[in-house]
């Protein structure tokens, strides 16, 4: 599982693909968040009006089958894109969602469980670089992720996203982002440009801020030991596919 990478990948990709290919940036971000938005609330558990909802087997629900693991596959990206294109005829949105979901599924092959990239083939593709520990709960999971190679992976994305700063400029937003997506003129009916710009920059704000916050929380406030070895941190109980 990757954390901040999912917030920042769209900016890096926009920098690379933004020339010549019309992709909805909003769809790219939603695609990149989508697989976890659909599953994480049940993986870690959620309280709704005093009732607690949680998957009985969080690991299988998140990445396996039977479960919602198919959301972390390249196939899911294609299916979502096909449905969106068939219903809206919007190529930028279909492409954005598909590429976003692909990025998410590919990033998540870095942990010890990996993802079923070619679902319905249920084989998990995994690099096993950092420990998958969602079953231990959100805070323990964060501590493990930001102590193993996960923090290196996120650091790379933070650097790449900061290096993509030209696409964060107001002029770039006006000239490249707004014209390629009907979302912005529609939202612009209620919000001024400063607010639209904040929405556009929101995911990178969230990503970099939470990277800093989790790192400080894990290593300054709580002193979890760093273990950036392959498959680590080995002090955490990792699940393997």
């Amino acid at each position, binding site marked *: 599982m990757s954390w901040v990478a999912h*917030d920042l990948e769209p900016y890096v990709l926009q920098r690379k693909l933004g020339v010549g290919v019309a992709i909805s940036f909003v769809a790219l971000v939603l695609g990149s*968040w989508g697989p976890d938005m659909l599953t994480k609330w049940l993986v870690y558990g959620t309280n709704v009006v005093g009732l607690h909802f949680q998957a009985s087997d969080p690991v299988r629900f998140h990445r396996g089958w039977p479960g919602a693991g198919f959301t972390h596959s390249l196939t899911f990206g294609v299916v979502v894109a096909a449905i969106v294109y068939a219903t809206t005829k919007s190529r930028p949105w279909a492409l954005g969602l598909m590429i976003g979901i692909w990025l998410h599924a590919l990033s998540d092959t870095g942990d010890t469980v990996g993802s079923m990239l070619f679902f319905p083939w249920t084989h998990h593709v995994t690099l096993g670089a950092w420990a998958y520990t969602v079953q231990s709960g*959100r*805070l323990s999971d964060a501590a493990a992720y930001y102590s193993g190679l996960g923090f290196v992976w996120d650091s790379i994305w933070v650097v790449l996203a900061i290096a993509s700063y030209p696409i964060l400029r107001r002029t770039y937003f006006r000239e490249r982002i707004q014209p390629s997506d009907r979302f912005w003129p529609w939202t612009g009916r209620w*919000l*001024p440009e*400063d*607010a639209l*710009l*904040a*929405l556009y*920059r*929101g*995911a990178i*704000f*969230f990503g*970099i*801020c*939470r990277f*800093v*916050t*989790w790192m*400080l*929380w894990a290593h300054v*406030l709580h002193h979890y030991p760093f273990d950036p070895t392959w498959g680590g941190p080995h002090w955490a109980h990792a699940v393997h596919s």
Partner: protein
Amino acid sequence: MTMHEATGVLVEKRRRVRWATLRDPLLYGGAASTYVAIGLFVTWFRLTWVVAFVWLLLWVWLLPAAVRRVAR
């Protein structure tokens, strides 16, 4: 226009240019530093993107708009 008035216009113009350059770094920096400071101690604050987006909108849109209204 007198010399005194021309100088005043120039100073005002320079102030506007300086504010336009510093505006985004100051507002986004303020939003980021306060978000991290609160998020360190309040778990729910750092968990969801919704809170981060609302916090950012508050800092870079609503706060300047409120200041402008008060200053008018």
